[in-house]
């Protein structure tokens, strides 16, 4: 399955035009966003801050390039670190909250950050940054211009694939098991000594680090960073893709993202009616496959069984 996907992904620029290559780049970045978002979801919480943390990566890349002429790898690392650092600070107050309070808490924190980007000209104000030039590598004569959409697509694919491998490992590592433990049985996890808040924080921060990478990829891919790009709408879409895809398996969110984005794109013929048609599709999916597309496709058998979840007996935070 993974191989098929990988081959399909690599073939895009050869069989489709620039338009589809560019769209595939967008999908690849979104896939990274979703897979990292899933880490937060693994701990049983939904967040609205993930997109703004991606923004933190994107803004860092923009500032690094514009002010310091940094190269792509350096921006990538810096973006990731800055996003993680912001997440670490935010997590201190936010992770006291649970459930819908956490969701809205993350929205408030994220929106405040985004409004500050709009407010301060250091961050380019309402206009943001533009003209972030694409990476250009020169390996002793072999020159690669990543401004060409196919080249940048492969660069994105490589970075995203590397991140996905890491995320895949992470999920199977002890840390991943701890997260799943927290999501499934918060109280039981606590009672065997797992400091659930601490591990939620770790999840939030690690997820942000990957979101930061996705942000850097975004900034280079489109050469611009605008505050509007990180508004609530995009956070909502991230959540929709994750839920529609299903978060139980590694591939659920990826499938959700790809299918829904492809759907949205294929609805272009509906022009102005597109969002409405999309809304109808969302409703139908939720009514008929409420557990998400992953169940439909039946990869669940790969690992993770069933969905039934014992009711929590008690919890420290409530909500």
């Amino acid at each position, binding site marked *: 399955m993974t191989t098929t996907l990988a081959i399909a992904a690599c073939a895009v620029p050869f069989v489709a035009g620039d338009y589809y290559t560019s769209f595939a780049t967008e999908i690849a970045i979104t896939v990274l966003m979703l897979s990292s978002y899933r880490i937060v979801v693994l701990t049983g919480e939904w967040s609205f801050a993930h997109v703004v943390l991606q923004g933190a990566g994107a803004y860092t890349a923009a500032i690094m390039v514009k002010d310091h002429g940094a190269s792509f790898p350096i921006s990538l690392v810096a973006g990731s670190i800055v996003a993680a650092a912001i997440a670490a600070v935010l997590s201190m107050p936010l992770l006291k909250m649970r459930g819908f309070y956490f969701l809205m808490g993350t929205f408030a924190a994220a929106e405040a950050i985004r409004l500050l980007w709009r407010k301060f000209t250091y961050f380019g104000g309402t206009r943001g940054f533009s003209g972030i030039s694409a990476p250009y590598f020169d390996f002793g004569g072999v020159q690669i211009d990543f401004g060409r959409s196919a080249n940048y697509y492969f660069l994105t694919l490589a970075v995203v694939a590397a991140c996905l491998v*890491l995320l895949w*490992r*992470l999920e199977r*590592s*002890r*840390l991943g*098991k*701890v997260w799943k*433990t927290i999501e*499934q*049985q918060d*109280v*039981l*996890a*606590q*009672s*065997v*000594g*797992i*400091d*659930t808040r601490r591990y939620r924080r770790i999840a939030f921060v690690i997820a942000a680090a990957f979101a930061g990478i996705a942000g850097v990829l975004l900034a280079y891919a489109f050469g611009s960073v605008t505050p509007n790009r990180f508004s609530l709408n995009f956070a909502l879409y991230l959540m929709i893709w994750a839920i529609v895809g299903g978060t139980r398996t590694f591939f659920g969110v990826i499938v959700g993202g790809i299918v829904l984005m492809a759907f949205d794109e294929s609805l272009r013929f509906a022009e102005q009616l597109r969002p409405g048609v999309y809304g109808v599709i969302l409703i139908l999916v939720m009514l008929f496959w409420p557990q998400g597309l992953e169940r439909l496709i039946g990869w669940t058998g790969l690992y*993770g*069984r*069933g*969905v*039934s*979840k*014992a009711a929590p*007996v*008690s919890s*420290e935070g409530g909500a």
Partner: protein
Amino acid sequence: MPILSLHEVTKAFGGLVAVNRATFSVEPGSIHGLIGPNGAGKTTLFSLITGFYRPTMGRVELDGEDITRLSTSARARKGLVRTFQGTVLFSDLTVEENIANGMLAESSSPWTDWLFESPASRSSRQERAAAIMDYARLSDLRNVGAKDLSHGQQRVLGIAIALAAKPRLLLLDEPFTGMTASEKNRLAEMLRRIREDGATIVLVEHDMRTVMRLCDVITVLNFGSVLTEGTPEQVRRHPEVMAAYLGSAA
């Protein structure tokens, strides 16, 4: 020195005092019963000991150290591990995975373990899980999903998960509920073995027969306060205990 001691522990929910100045201690190496009629405050007291609630007043000590302010998980890492009423398990996972989850909190391993677990640490954990399954007679069921176990097996698995967290003081919340007689016997046997292996057990239980048979010391709660404390024989003879349980005839 007692392994666990409570001093004047009180918990009020609004105006309702669920636990009132409860004071008692648990000696290491004992099986200590905590009984009382429905609504006597056992479960609240249990939550106070394990840190799911903070007491309104009073102090909880583990090995003489004040743990009143510690979180549940911090207490667990100090060796105070609980089980749950009903079946709180990782029901989607197998028996073996459930037990492995009980070991996740161990922090001794190097950080690389977070990404790639070293074969050595993996095999040592597998060995321990195997030992615990052996102990709990769950070895044959290692690959069975937790939700496919019988009720009694699920209860035992709950205790096995707790054992994986290396408890020094194991708090069991009504472990015998819903078990058949033979299951009860086997569990009682297992609890004795746990005690012999050095852990102390505090048992909240309704099944009086089992409690009387198994416990070294019994503390009786009624209306949130300690009614009496003593050996099973003393408790059995205590007139107020009888009244509390059977109710004074109306």
